[in-house]
């Protein structure tokens, strides 16, 4: 084999092994997390990055022909399809879970979420269960008092 063949073999194998590593990370995340909305975060990674890396490796192996064009079409289709299916799955989980507050904080409308973010801007995404126990009026009063003083 010439030097070009060796470069093609090494680069394609690197992309293929990278895709397999991404798939393994996805599998680890699926078994590591305890709730489905966290598991979805790990599972969406393999749908886009894992299969894109694997198919780019196969495109490099295949060369420039019609097969590689169709492999590229699969990657582009999955980039559009994977966020939609993740969104639909998250809607299924939120719509059918009876006690969603046991797993994550739930803001019923946008004003409550904005009040919680304004009140504690650093801890809004960090501490679970910090702002969910206050009702909406109390948070609004706290925000007004902070603005006046």
């Amino acid at each position, binding site marked *: 084999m010439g030097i070009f063949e060796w470069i093609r073999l090494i680069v394609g194998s690197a992309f293929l092994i990278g895709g397999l590593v991404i798939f393994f990370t996805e599998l680890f995340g*699926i078994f590591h997390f305890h709730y489905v909305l966290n598991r979805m975060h790990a599972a969406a990674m393999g749908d886009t990055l894992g299969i894109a890396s*694997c198919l780019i490796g*196969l495109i490099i192996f295949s060369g420039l022909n019609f097969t590689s064009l169709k492999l590229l079409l699969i990657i582009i289709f999955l980039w559009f*399809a994977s966020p*939609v299916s993740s969104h*639909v*799955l998250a809607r*299924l989980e939120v*719509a059918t879970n009876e006690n969603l507050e046991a797993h994550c904080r739930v803001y019923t409308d946008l004003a409550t979420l904005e009040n919680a973010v304004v009140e504690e801007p650093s801890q809004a995404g960090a501490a679970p269960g910090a702002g969910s126990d206050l009702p909406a009026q109390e948070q609004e009063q706290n925000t007004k008092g902070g603005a006046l003083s």
Partner: protein
Amino acid sequence: MLYHYIYLTVLIILAVMIFACLIRAVRGPRIADRLVAVNMMGTMVMVMIAVLALMLDEGYLVDVCLVYAMISFLAVVILSKVYIGIYEENRHTDNGSDQEGKGGISDGNF
């Protein structure tokens, strides 16, 4: 011949990962867990079909892979919509069966 062994190794690793996904799909406590695992299995099967297309040097298997991607996406969307509809219907029949009557499957968010 070297490429053949590379494809064979990738296929074996992907088969083991698909079995691990199947364990998650069986053990998943909620139905969204199972759907996530089935979606992952579909992604890995797509890579397997694409590897087979290059290993056997059959170009039409890539078309099979593209159709598989579309059907896998469609299956996840349809199954979640159907399950939301079934859940809403069960809740309607549990809560107010006398005053509500029967809300069909189209009564939910369908």
